[in-house]
């Protein structure tokens, strides 16, 4: 069964042009000039119920605009979409009962009140029965380990605690489809991992379809089975995440800070390139198709005194560039079936 089906979705905005200079500003006031900006340029996409789909792209690619159209917040300029069998912008209220959304940079929690109050409000908004709501709330509080925070004003919570509350709140009414727009933005590694685990668990246990946008390749690797990359408002890659990992996410960056006087081994392992990044600091590029990250780390730990070490995924911009350069050849949406 299809959770969503999108065909030729286009969204254009009229943007006022504001030229530089005082005279130009006055002229613009009297006779404004407008340009048309295309945020989404004919996206075609299908997703099965229960899928975990990563929707990727650099800033301004059209990810958020697409989500806003699929949730019924924005009306498209042209094209069709059905989400859970409904046209989002025409049946927004009915669809709202069956979808959830978390916007990483916008809170749904009431700032001065504890999350418990927002949960109560949401239970009323989604018209949950009292017994059902209390059971569901307790279950989510337990699974998301929210007990200590439920009675703490939101303004006093850390970003990670707040985000766990946000995501738990989005699951309260058991949505069939959950849109997550940058849910891990600004979080530390441990909190990110916990949030991914919790989302994956809901997907597994309740069959919730997950539609995720993120700039963090780890979100996609660890949570999603399919990746759709968009750029300039069109789909440029649509394939299983495994393929993206195999063909694009093949590079990790290891940052090493060595103890004073320590040196890198003279011969680096195959697939590793090193560049100096400051006094006693090195930036290593590891090609994971040639060398496993575990072996590389073991080689360095055994040969030099390390003060600090971090492992990073390639930034999303590099992923997009790699897709563009043809490193990965995912099926374009127009040709593939899902």
């Amino acid at each position: 069964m299809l959770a969503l089906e999108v065909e030729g979705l286009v969204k254009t905005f009229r943007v006022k042009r504001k030229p530089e200079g005082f005279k130009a500003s006055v002229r613009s006031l009297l006779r404004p000039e407008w340009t048309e900006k295309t945020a989404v340029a004919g996206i075609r996409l299908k997703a099965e119920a229960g899928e975990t789909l990563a929707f990727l792209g650099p800033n301004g690619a059209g990810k958020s605009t697409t989500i806003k159209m699929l949730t019924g917040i924005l009306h498209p300029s042209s094209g069709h979409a059905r989400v859970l069998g409904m046209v989002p912008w025409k049946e927004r209220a009915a669809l709202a009962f069956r979808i959830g959304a978390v916007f990483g940079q916008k809170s749904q929690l009431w700032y001065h009140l504890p999350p418990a109050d927002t949960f109560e409000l949401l239970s009323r908004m989604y018209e949950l029965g009292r017994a059902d709501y209390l059971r569901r709330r307790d279950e989510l509080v337990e699974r998301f380990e929210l007990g200590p925070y439920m009675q703490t004003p939101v303004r006093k919570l850390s970003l990670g605690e707040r985000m766990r509350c946000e995501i738990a709140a989005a699951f309260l009414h058991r949505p069939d489809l959950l849109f997550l727009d940058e849910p891990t933005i600004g979080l530390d590694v441990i909190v990110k991992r916990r949030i991914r685990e919790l989302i994956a668990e809901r997907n597994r246990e309740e069959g919730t379809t997950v539609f995720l946008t993120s700039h963090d390749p780890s979100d996609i690797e660890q949570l999603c089975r399919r990746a759709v990359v968009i750029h300039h408002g069109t789909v440029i890659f649509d394939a299983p995440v495994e393929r993206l990992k195999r063909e694009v996410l093949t590079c990790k960056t290891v940052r090493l800070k060595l103890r004073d006087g320590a040196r890198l081994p003279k011969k680096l392992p195959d697939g590793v390139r090193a560049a100096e990044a400051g006094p006693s600091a090195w930036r290593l590029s590891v090609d994971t198709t040639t060398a496993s990250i575990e072996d590389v780390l073991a080689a360095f730990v055994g040969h030099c005194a390390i003060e600090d070490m971090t492992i990073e995924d390639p930034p999303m911009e590099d992923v997009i560039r790699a897709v563009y350069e043809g490193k990965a050849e995912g099926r374009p949406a127009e040709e593939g079936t899902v």
Partner: protein
Amino acid sequence: MTPALAKWHKYRAVGIIAVKQQLHYRVDFIVRALFLLLILFIFIHLWRAAYASSGSETIEGFALNQIIWYLVFAEAVTMACPQLCVRIEEEVKQGEVAVRLIRPIAYNGFHYMTYLAEAGLRFIVQLAAGSAIAWAYMGPPLFGWGWAGLAALLPGAFTVAFLLNLAVALLAFCVEETRGMEFVLQKLNFTVGGMLLPLELMPDWLERVCGWLPFQAVLYFPARMGVAFDGGRLAAFLLTQWGWAAALAVLCAFIYRRGVRKLNVNGG
């Protein structure tokens, strides 16, 4: 649970959480109350001077204590009204409107409930502050049924105030700035709405003009009925008030439908 009951619980819950949130703005309450005290202090002295120079006990049928309590009621309503235009404009600019629109609740209905809840709570606080000074200078507000008249007209007053502001605020869906229009709306309320003085004290031609405008339903109706109850006029006031509310609700629904199609939700 019947659908109607579920809807009632939904909007009631919005009102409750809005009151809870509002209770955290203690400094705002105190600042507003102090400002109200200052304004009333000045007006009490102005009106005392005006009555003294007129040499009469009443002006257009209003005694001095009625005028002062009229000001208390009108100012309490004015200062109780939340800044809806600022709120909706910020929602659009910051993209928070997205969080509102993904909920199974009417956007205008959500704001109506938060507005009523906040206005109701603030009105009680402002009335208490205003009463303190008016009572000290003018004596107790012995207006009998006037209090019932005031209470009967308050829901309609806040509803019309909400809808007037909403009609302007919703324009934020399509235009960049609504503050200018809000400023004009506010000043119309202050002048032709009867905030500073009852409409009876205005020139006849202006009083007639005001009678055709919705602004009188927000401040003049409840404050006038509070200080000088008139059972016959109460029905007319209620009818006019809710007539304007119905007309403005239709206008707001129209603006919302047009606006939401043009909405550009900012931010990621």
